[in-house]
């Protein structure tokens, strides 16, 4: 009897053998709360490094010829909420954005009012946490301008973006700190590539927070809330993916 073992089979068996010893070890290690917290504290290091070395740095902007021929839409591509569908059918003519929470003058702004504010137009690269990138043009008023109009109270530390969509049955939301909120490229985009935002890309309003990954760019923004702490808001970690997927709140890396 001859025993034939292919080289590929041998390599595969060897790797699988090594893996089956090592992997449960890594998975188990990660279940240890102290170990996991230590690894997760890397996020603070990323954030502090960015704030020290590039607090006010601008994201790169591109020329029109650099734009992606087609811009991939990800996450929620449509919203089932009946009120939203009605607004969509009406071209968001009766829709308005609310800005409240820890502000002196809560705002309610129609889409037209947002269009009438001074605008910023930028061609930037959208980087998804999955690894892909797309370059597109975005237009809208600076978020900082709205915050100046609403006059933030001193205790406000974060802005929470409440969205009209449900993702896997739960409301999507996101949050950013004041460094990103007042960053000159942080805008509330109602137009993309020269046209009003499509539903798949977050109509009527999408947050652009250019120095962070795609999941921070909340789509279908309905209400902005200034808060002192993220605790007590949904899962308490500051965003849908932060609550439901162990994704980092600071997504600049």
């Amino acid at each position, binding site marked *: 009897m001859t025993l034939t073992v292919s080289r590929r089979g041998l390599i595969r068996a060897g790797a699988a053998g090594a893996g089956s010893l090592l992997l449960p070890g*890594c*998975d188990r290690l990660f279940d240890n709360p102290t170990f996991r917290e230590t690894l997760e504290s890397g996020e603070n290091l990323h954030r502090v490094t960015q704030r020290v*070395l590039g607090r006010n740095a601008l994201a790169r902007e591109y020329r029109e010829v650099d734009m992606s021929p087609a811009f*991939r839409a990800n996450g929620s591509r449509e919203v089932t909420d009946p009120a939203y569908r009605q607004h969509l059918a009406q071209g968001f003519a009766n829709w308005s954005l609310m800005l409240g929470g820890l502000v002196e003058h809560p705002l309610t702004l129609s889409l037209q009012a947002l269009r009438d504010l001074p605008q910023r137009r930028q061609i930037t*690269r959208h980087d998804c946490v*999955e690894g892909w990138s797309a370059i597109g043009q975005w237009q809208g008023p600076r978020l900082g301008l709205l915050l100046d109009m609403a006059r933030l109270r001193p205790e406000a530390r974060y802005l929470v973006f409440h969205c009209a969509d449900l993702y896997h049955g739960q409301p999507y939301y996101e949050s950013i700190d004041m460094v990103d909120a007042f960053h000159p490229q942080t805008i509330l985009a109602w137009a993309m590539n020269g046209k009003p935002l499509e539903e798949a890309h977050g109509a009527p309003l999408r947050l652009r927070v250019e120095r962070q990954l795609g999941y921070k760019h909340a789509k279908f923004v309905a209400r902005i809330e200034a808060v002192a702490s993220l605790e007590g808001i949904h899962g308490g970690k500051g965003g849908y993916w932060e609550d439901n*997927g162990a994704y*980092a709140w600071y997504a600049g*890396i």
Partner: protein
Amino acid sequence: MSEAAASPAPQGGELVRRHRWPTRLWHWTNAVTLLVMLMSGLMIFNAHPRLYWGEYGANYDNAWLKVGSARSGGGEQGYIEIAGHRWDTTGTLGLWTDADGKVQRRAFPYWATIPSRYSLAIGRIWHLAFAWVLAVGLLFYLAWSLIAGHVRRDIHITRAEWRPSHLWHDIREHARLRFPTGVSALHYSVLQKLAYAGVLFGLLPMMILTGLAMSPGTDAWAPFVTEVFGGRQSARSVHFLCAWGLVGFFVLHIVMVLLAGPFNEVRSMVTGWYRLPRERRP
């Protein structure tokens, strides 16, 4: 009077001090770190198993490399596609069976990734935490290597060693598995120097730079890092290729250790002491 002049040159068979503690510490830290980086990196790749050149790249764009699964005839196959050429990788890439016997359609199989179950978020937590260990470790080790003379004494390739005849001689000696003995085993051969310098000054810095180039936060304050590679998606491709360069180095490294005498080699990297191989009889 220097120490070397006072004591006679060591002979084959003698124990000599070979690796200093920073080298040993860095070696074993990297052994763990690079394994974690590779396996968690493969998990991150699994989230979007396609590579592009340029600044942008997503599903509608041309990928130069992709891993996936497709129906073929009556069945289904896993494949890797590079520059339009497709290879069947069923069982390993794109289509494989997990530990519970379930068919999965991810790129890299469970035994190659951290964590073993699909989780981009947890893969990123591992990867981005250990990235600090790798980067800070490399920074300290490079600084020490330059200051303490490790680069000058042990890795610097002399003009004589660059001579084609010397390189060719060393390649032939390696191919015949005739490793240096006696006093000449005190120094790295030119091929060893090339391999170590390539990792220390080439592959590892490239991994860190291409990693930083993918970060939108870093891209804002250090855009030249991304631009040097020709864009974020190019940087991602180079990151992937250099990772396999490191795997190649690792395989070669392990083979050489096994061939040169694993006990002696591992001891020298743990304790620092190395027994010089005895001179061959002429």
